[in-house]
Structure formats: C-alpha cells, structure tokens
C-alpha cells in the first residue's frame, strides 16, 4: 500500500518556496493574559501533555485534555511507517515462527497411519460390472462382500473407521433443508412441511422425516484379524451436543422407510433417536461433495504387516450418480487425521517470507533509500 510517504521525499527538498511555518502565524491573542495552549496543540505532534491553564470560553471546549485533542483530531497515535527495516523485521519474525510450526504440523501428520480402501467397484460381482445399478437395486442379490487389506504401519488404538463418499451432495440446498430439528427433538407432532418431500407416508407422519434421514447410509462393516474378530465400537461416534440436545431421548422412529421408494437404511423403532448414532452422524451434513463420516472406533492396536479382512454389506446406491465409496482406517494425533496441507502451508509461507526478507535486505543494502 502506498502511504503518503512516497510523496514526502519530494516535498522535503522542494526549496523553491520556503514553507511558511504555520505556528508563527497563529493569531495574536486579543489580550496578553492566559497561556495559549492552542499553539502547543499545533506543534505538539508527539502528544506530550499540553498544560491546562486557559479557562473554557463561552461553551467552547477547553483547549487541552483528551477531549480537546479528540475534537482537533490530534490524539496521540501510532503511525506505522513501513520503513525497509520494519518490513524486513516483520518478514523475518513471521518466517521464524512459521517454519517450526509448519514442521511440527507436518510431523504430526506424518505420525498418522491411514488406510483408504475403495470398494464400490470391487464389491460388485463381475456379472454386474456393466450394470451396477441393476445389481444394487435388486434386493434378492446378496450384498455381502469381503475385502482384504494389508496394514503397512503399526496402528495404535484408537483406530477410527470412516466411510468416505464422493460426488454426494449433502450440501445441496434441497437436501440440507429437508429435515425438522423440532421433530428430531420433540417427536412426531412437530412434523412440518420443511421435511418435504419425505414428510408423510401412507397418510402418517414419518419420524425422522426429510431427505437426509431418508437417505441414511446403510453399508455395514465388520473386521476380522486372522480368525479373530476386531471389535468396532459404534458408540460415541457423534458429537455429544447432538446426542444430548438435538435428538430426543423419547423420540422413536415411526413409519420410517415405508414409502413407495425406499431410500437408505432403516432404523430400529425401539431405540430412541438420541441413541441412533449412525443417524446422528449422517444428519450432520458434510460441507463438500467428498466427505468422510465416522463409522466406529477400533480400540485395539493393529501391527504392521497384519492383514485385515473387511466384511462389507454393500447396500448403498452410489452407482446411479457415479459416486465412490471407500472405507478408511486411521489413527489420529492432536491435529486430527492425516493432512499434510497445513504443515506445507506453514512451511511455504514461512520460508517464502524468509526469502523475501533476505531479498529485501539485499536490495536495501545495495540501494538504500
């Protein structure tokens, strides 16, 4: 940004007309009494305390004090002037802070072991590969599917299990609005038109209503390690505030998935919504069309080179819109899951500011202003 600065050097040396010093022409007081602070106010830039002494005349503000300075726009102020020294110093400081932070983030991200396994194609029998929709819509075909992955790194508990969907617009306006928070909390009497088009079915209200609930994700996963089963803890996968405040403890699913068109998963009508954690997780809409949602937590370590068998029921139709499905196993650190971006961003920022700092310093040494 240009500051007035860029003009000033010209002015300082324009000697053609000697500038008249303004304080000199301050009007002479009509009477000699009373110290005039007005002069001080003009000259006094640093904002040193102008002494009081003149009495306020006829309603005019006294010529001293904070209020006077305020009205005269002469408050003490910090006027940062972007001298080369400052700029270099600022860049240097930023660089010095950012590079280590970046390194720490990167290191945290590197400690995370993550397995992403896409299964939406592999789980379709070869016969249906060309017409996956027919496969997924045909309820008579078994959707069971077994996949194996080899773990390369030691994974320390807790290991989080996610499903990842792609090209699924949970953030679509129609979709995201189609829910009733009141109903989720207080029960079916609060069913309202906000849930359209999944509001009523067969003349009765649907609980939980709306498109989001209706399209509940319903693939299931089981894991075995060798012959041993791996326990997946499906509790506490949702936000606690959701469970406690947004889903009613005495609201039970009702008339759900009874319509002509069945969307996603079904719910056990005997479990209150506040305990239907799958639903709660699903109901929290993702921001982007590619997203992960927590499925459960494995509370056991997995050693490197172990092979994990995944027993998948591939119920959910992503084939009609060409979405991918993946299963994700990952550990976490204080920074969350695996994401190098943050670390790199810091590193790049930090190092480029150090680079700029050096560049400016060189320029400054060569061509000092």
């Amino acid at each position, binding site marked *: 940004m240009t500051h*007035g600065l860029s003009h000033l050097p010209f002015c300082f040396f324009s000697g053609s007309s000697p500038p008249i010093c303004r304080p000199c022409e301050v*009007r002479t007081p009509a009477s000699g009494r009373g110290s005039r602070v*007005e002069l001080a106010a003009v000259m006094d*830039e640093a904002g040193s305390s102008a002494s009081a002494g003149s009495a306020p005349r006829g309603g005019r503000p006294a010529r001293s004090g904070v209020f006077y300075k305020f009205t005269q726009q002469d408050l003490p102020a910090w006027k940062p002037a972007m001298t080369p020294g400052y700029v270099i110093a600022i860049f240097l400081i930023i660089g010095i802070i950012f590079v280590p932070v970046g390194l720490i983030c990167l290191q945290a991200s590197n400690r995370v072991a*993550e397995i992403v396994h896409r299964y939406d194609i592999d789980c379709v029998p070869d016969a249906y590969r060309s017409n996956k929709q027919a496969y997924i819509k045909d309820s008579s075909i078994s959707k069971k599917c077994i996949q194996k992955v080899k773990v390369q790194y030691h994974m320390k508990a807790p290991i989080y299990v996610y499903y990842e969907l792609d090209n699924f617009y949970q953030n679509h306006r*129609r979709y995201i609005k189609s829910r009733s928070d009141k109903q989720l909390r207080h029960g079916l009497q609060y069913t309202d038109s906000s849930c359209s088009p999944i509001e009523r079915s067969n003349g009765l209200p649907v609980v939980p209503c709306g498109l989001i609930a209706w399209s509940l994700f319903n693939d299931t996963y089981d894991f075995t390690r060798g012959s041993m089963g791996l326990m997946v803890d499906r509790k506490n996968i949702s936000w606690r505030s959701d469970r*406690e405040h947004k889903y009613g403890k005495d609201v039970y699913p009702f008339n759900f998935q009874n319509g002509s068109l069945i969307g996603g998963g079904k719910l056990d009508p005997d479990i209150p919504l506040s305990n239907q954690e799958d639903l709660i997780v699903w109901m929290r809409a993702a921001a982007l069309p590619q997203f992960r949602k927590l499925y459960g937590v494995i509370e056991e370590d997995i050693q490197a080179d172990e092979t994990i068998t995944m027993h998948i029921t591939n119920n959910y*139709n992503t084939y009609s*819109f060409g979405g991918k499905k993946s299963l994700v196993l990952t550990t976490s650190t204080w*920074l969350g899951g695996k994401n190098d971006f943050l670390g790199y961003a810091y590193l790049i920022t930090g190092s480029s500011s150090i680079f700029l700092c050096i560049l400016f310093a060189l320029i400054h040494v060569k061509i000092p202003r």
Partner: protein
Amino acid sequence: MLKEGVEDWRRKQQDIELNNRIVKVHRGNGSFEETKWKYIKIGDVIKVEKDNFFPADLILLSSNYPDGICYVETMNLDGETNLKIKQALEVTSDLQEDGDFTNLRQIIKCEDPNANLYSFVGTMDYKGMRHPLSPQQLLLRDSKLRNTDYIYGAVIFTGHDTKVMQNATEPPSKRSKIEKKMDYIIYLLLCSLLGIALLGSVFFGIWTKADLRNGELKRWYLRPDDSTVFYDPKRAPLASFCHLLTALMLYNYFIPISLYISIEMVKILQAVFINQDIDMYDEESDKPTHARTSNLNEELGQVDTILSDKTGTLTCNMMEFIKCSIAGTAYGQSVTEVEKAMALRKGVPLGDEIEAGGHKEKQIEESPHVKGFNLKDPRIMDGNWIHEPNKDVIRDFFRLLAICHTCIPEVDETDKVSYEAESPDEAAFVIAARELGFEFYKRTQTSIVIRERDPNQNVADYQYRKYELLNVLEFSSSRRRMSVIVKEPEPEGRILLFSKGADSVMFTRLAPDGRKFEEETKRHINEYSDSGLRTLVLAYRVLDEKEYENFAEKFRTAKISGSADRDEQIGEAADSIERDLILLGATAVEDKLQKGVPECIDKLAQAGIKIWVLTGDKMETAINIGFACSLLRQGMTQIIIALEAPDIIALEKNGDKDSIAKASKQSVMGQIEDGIKQVPTLGQSSTESFALIIDGKSLTYALEDDVKFKFLDLAVKCASVICCRSSPKQKALVTRLVKHSDKVTLAIGDGANDVGMLQEADIGVGISGVEGMQAVMASDIAIAQFRFLERLLLVHGHWCYRRISVMICYFFYKNVTFGVTIFLYEAFASFSGKPAYNDWFLSLYNVFFTSLPVIALGVFDQDVSSRLCLQYPELYQEGVQNVLFSWRRILGWMFNGVVNAILIFFFCTTALKDQAFRQDGQVAGLDALGATMYTCVVWVVNCQMALSVNYFTIIQHIFIWGSITVWYIFLMVYGAIDPKYSKTAYMVFIEQLGPQRYHIGW
C-alpha cells in the same frame, strides 16, 4: 435523504416568514393598509419605510425628500455595502402625502422581466405626458431603504419576475464526484453479480436436468421425481430461473448496501470534526466553521479551481486611509499587506516590518483602532501638522477631504459622527479628515458643515465652518474624478473648486503654477500603487465670481435639458471648469484585505489550485486587489479583454443594438484569439505566467455558446483569472463553464450576489461575515474568514478525500471478499443456493464484524498530520488528480478481494478436507467449515484494514481488534443459545492459522 428533507423544510420556513412580512399598500382614496408581501400585485402603489426591504421591483415615485431622492443599500444584490442614490422622476416627486394618491393615474410600460440588474427601460404616461424611465427610478427587491424616511413606489415586477429572482438559480442537490463514480462501481458490481448468478443458474439447470433421465433417478437422494418447481428436472429452465433469483439474493453482498449508510455516518462525523476545528474558529465573530451539507467533504480534497468573490471575501470591504503625500512630502508609516506579502516572498524579513508590527500592537493597546483609518505619522497626528512647513497646504488637503464627497453624516447622542458613504473609499477620506481634526459634521441640500478642532489640542474647542454647497460634479467612470464647488464662509468668502481624481486625468489639468510638487507626488503615487494602494490626486482651484456664474448657467441648462446628450453636456460644462488646478497632494487608501489572504492564496497556488476572482468591481480596483492578494505578480503577463476600443464606443453612441452586439462579439473573439496565441502551448515551459482579466461586458459575449469554449481554453491556461463588473448571473455562468472542463470547482463568496455562483459550483463556501446570511444559506460550507479555506482544503479536504476514497475501496473489497467465498462454495454445492454460512453470520457481517473499523478509518485516518499537510501543499494534488480513486486503484482493491477470497476458500477447504480435524475423530461438517471460513474472512478483512490505516489511535485499535474479538464472543454466545452450535465454538482455535497464512501469502 432525510437530511435534505430537513433542509428543505427549513427553507420553507424561511419562505413563509418572508411571504408574511408586512408592507403598506395603497387601497384607494389615499389610504394605505398593511398587507402581507404575498398579496402584493403589479400596479399597487406601496409605501416603504426606513430600513425596510423592498418587497418587489418598484418604480420610485417619490420620497420624503423634495427632490425625490432616496438612498438604497444593495448589499444583497452586488455585495457592495455603500449607499446608492435613486431619484424619482420630477413629475412624480411631488406626491408627498398619502392623500396625493387618491386619483392618481399613470401607465407604466416596461421591458419584460429579465436578469439584468443594471439596465432598465420603460416609459410612464402621466398627465398626458410620456416620460422615460431608467435604472435611476428602479428599486430592486431585496435592497434596503436607508437614510430616507419613506418612499412611494409602483410595483412593476413581483415574485419570480423580479430581477433578483431572475438571477436566482434553483438550489441543486449536490453529490460529490466520488459518489457519482461510486454509482458506476455499483453498476459494475451489479453486472458481475448478474454474471456469476447467471453462470450458477446455468450449471444448476444442467445438473438438475441430468438428475432425471428417462425415469432414472441420478441423484436419487434428492428425490428429483417428487420435486417442487425449484428443483424440478422436468422444468429445468424454470428451476434455473428461480435459482437465478435465489442467487441474486445470495450474492447481494457484492452490492454493499450498508456502504451508503456508513458513508453517510462517516461524512456527518467528518463534518462534526470540521465544525470543531479550533483553527478554523473565528474568535472575533465567535463563528466556527459550519459544514451545512456533509455530502461534499471529500470533494474538498479535489478542488481544481476556486472561484472567489472579492468584496467581503478577499477584502474586508473596508478602506483604510493609510498614506498620503502632501505638498511633496510622504506621510504614513504603516506597512501594507502587499508590502508584507512581497517581503515574505523575497524571504527577507524586513527589519522595520517587525518593528512596525510590534509598534502596531502597542498602538492597538494604547488607543482603539479607528475603522478605516490607519495613518501613522507623528508629524501630522494629534494636531502636530501645525508645525510642518507646509501647514497651509496640509490644512487645505484635509478640508478638501472633508468636503469633496457625497457622504452623509450621522450624529449619535454622544456627538460622535459616523458616515454613510456611497463607496468605502469616501468613507475612509472623511474618517481620515475627522481623525486629523477636520470633522465633516452636517450636510444639508445646500451646505456642508465642518467642525474643525483647534490644532492646539483643546478638544472642547470646536470651530464650525459652514460651506455653501454650490455644485457637485459627480464621479463617473469616464470622467474618473469628482469635484464640488463651494463657497467658503466669511470672511474669505472665496468660491472654491475641490477636485479629486485618478492621477491620469488630474495631472493634465493642473495649472502651470500649481505643479510645484508634481515630481514628488508622482513618485509617491507610483510607490503607493506598487504597494497595492488605491491612489487619488487632490487639487483645488479658486474661482472668481464671473467665471463661476458662467459655469453655473451652462451647467444648469445642461442639467435640465433632458435631451439625449444631456450627460455629455454636463460633462462638457464640468470639463470647462475643472482646469488650472493647484495640486495639493495624493491619498493612498488600502482596500483592506482579510487577514491572511495573501498567504492563503499563495499556499493554495502552491497546492496547484487555480484561483479565479469574479467581482462586481471596476477593472482597476480588481487588478489592484489582484496584486494585493498575490494573485497577480510583477512579471506576469496580463491579458486584458475589454470593450473599450474607440470604434465600439462610437457604435454605442449610435445606439444600434444589433451592430453593437456584433462588433463587440467580434472584438471579444479577436481578443481571446490573440490571447491564446500569446499563451504558449502547455508543452513549452515558460518562466512567464499569464493572468487573464476580463470585464463584464466582454464576459457577456465570451459566455455565448460559440465563444465560451475558446474562452475557457484561454482561461485554464492562465494562472489567475479576474472577471470584473460581473453580475450574479454571470458569476454563475462562469462557474458552470468551468465545471464543463470536468474539474471540481469551489465557489466562495459572502453576499447574496454570490448565491448563484455558490449553488452552481461543485462546492459553495459561504463566508459568514458581516453581510447578510443569503450566501451562507446557499452555501455548503460556511467559514468565517477566507484564510480558513487553506486549512479547509489542504487539511480537511485532503483527509476527507483520502478517507472516503480508501473507505469506499475497502468497503467494496471486503464485500467482494465475502461474496466470492460464498460463490466459490456454491460451486462445490452444485450451485443449489446453499450459503456456506449460517444466516446470522451472513446478516451480521456488515453490521458487527467489519463495519466499525472502516468507519473509524473514514472518520479518523490521517496519512500525514495537519502540520505537514500545510507545510507541503503539493500533497493536495493527490486529490486533484484523483490518485486514490482511479479505476486502477478500485479494480486493484477488488482484485485483491477476489484473490483473498480464493485463498481463504481453498485454504479452509483443504485444511478441513475430509479427514478428522480433531483427536476424537469427528470430521468437520458444513457448520464447522462455514464458521472457519467466516473466521478467516473476518481476520483477513480486519488485518487488511490494519494495513490500510496509517494512524492508529486507541480508537482504531479498539475497533479493529475489537471486531475480531466480538466475532469470537458472538460465536460463543450464539453457540450457547442454540444447542445446534454449541460444539462448533471451540474448533476455531486451530483456525487462527488461516489469516496468518494469508497475511504473508498476500
């Protein structure tokens, strides 16, 4: 809007007040009734009493004086405070009583209403005779009756037909150039808003249509088979159109509606600061600066041309008798403004100047300063003149001053005399004479009484001398002198002719034996005029009886002749007697400049502002003042455009209007073209600068459509322009002409005659001085003294311009940033119209989290302190050249906004991508991303503000960092209220990374 409404209402109140003023109107049978102004009709005979305004244009019928004269103050018309004499026709001047109007029948024929104040033609049929009417009989509305008990007049024009109203221009609603440009930016943004909304709608339409193909559901989770019109794939174009409307609502952040409100607020606060400035507060009159409209604050920083009135604006309209040369000896030691200015320019602080200054102050403390008199010379003051060698000449000199004039004395209860003069010069003369002991005491139709103080210091001892007034040979601009013929009191009883006039005419009329001091006097006169003083030469002559008889006869016949060449005959008669004069000396009167005017003009010139002076004065006076206020300098080439060529004067005598106009125009054209040839083209640099001086008559032609651009061409090349003898309408026209060149004009004036100019100019500055309030009422900003203009423009103008332009740019920037993040998010939500942010975030963006810092910037920011602004006037050019609000700058800011938005968006989405962002394994949903992005935007936008601010007072710190804090507080409070958001509050901790990253990356 509201503000303007209030102003209009006030104006209306004034109008009502005016309409309901009372005047006496003849209602038949010689009875006069009090009637409201608004009921006055053409043809009414009305009676106006002393010190009242005329309610309409009147033909003067008679006054309380037997010869039908009356005195009129025309301050509201031309800004001149002196009194003008109007005279009724002789045939009507005997209508002295109310009853005389019982059976009065007159037919007045006159011209159509027009705007020309100084011309009038008409006839009156009375008692079977036709009499010509001239401006002498015309009393204009808004002028005031003075020194006359009452007058009778016939109404000829009322209301909007009056000459004053014809000169008035509609009060315009002014908007600053920046605001006008802002409209274009809004259009631009509106277009881009439409553009991106359209883009989104097209994509939305395509995708929506694809959702349902041959009964196959693509994105089945959206239930495209069971849809409302907004998402219906079967009616995709309609859905697309509906989406367009949604999108327009969603992206409306591109159009900062709050900008208008914020600007209004900021401007009002700026105006408060301008009003509060103690350096623009006049202690003498207890008047601070008053910004009456705050619309134009930033325009003050862009002024290219100042159009200034002279009288009352540059000068105090107060003549000071400052020096004189009597019998070849120069008296008077005071230093004039011009001398001071010249000394200052040379950089030599005159030793005696400082001394004189100190001396002056001492004097002020000793004796009260006498208005109009500033002669300091112990040799002649306090009666000391008696000891001078030429004491007889000195005595005659001051007697002449006391007698040869047309002033009227007013004696108050304490026996102090004050004067009503036709011109302030004359007042200065009589005052000077009074101060030296020759007090003009009383005037009757036939005599003048002078009260002479005994030079020997006995104050109580007066000597009354009664001079018999024989003739007054009036001043005219062609004669350039005036004389009176008086008969001395006994025992001398001589008949004397006292004459005063311009040096050019006077020296040729001296008698061979009256030239004793010619050399010295001439030298003094030259010195005086070099120091910007107005000089007059005084001379007298003793007439013998016979010669006078001859003259008196000739003069009388000339006067009553009534023929067309009456004036000429009178002139000839006067000419014959005003010869063989004996030189007494010369006077030098300073047209007192207002305090600090030359310095101020100097500074403004340094800042690159052109200054034009538009005055009703004579050309000589105007030029003098030009020198005095350093508008004209020695070494400047003066280009004078005037219509004084002999052939035109000859034509005027013939009276053929068309040919006069034609010839005049030709002549003006020629002169302008000559002038253009003289002025080098802009490329060539020349050490010489040019000044253009044009008189009112020429101006009439120069302002005609086919000439005016040539005239403008010439005028803008000249450093200073002076227009003399210009009417109020012309002032406004000149202003309009200058405005054509797309430069910001500022008009400054103090009288009602400047109203048109003030309203026409981009900014009208009224001087709230001694003259009426009309100018102030019509102005946008009222200041007490001309010199405050310097601070108003160079400091406040500069600041306000900077503040407003940066503020507007910033406002667009911050809204573009916000809008683009919303748009980018849309692209990832298949343009369905789901905003990334919570509704409350959206609506509070411009209210809480980003508004206060920008307002603080608009109100408080200073790039350099006021002291530096004044010290380096060159800084002002920043505004004149509109550096800060050029398209490049504006688009740069917007580009910055777009880049910021893209950075923020991609940074946030990548950082929060699909992996867990917390140790507990939860992933970030839409609400988390929205809050994070919003946080980033708030940080970035406020940090950008911190970078733009040059002047951090505690207020800026509180606002900028406070806004960010308030966002966090809001997030937490809002989260606590609504369980939906209770958890999203604490993820922000990590996200502080965002802005910092930006900070450097940018």
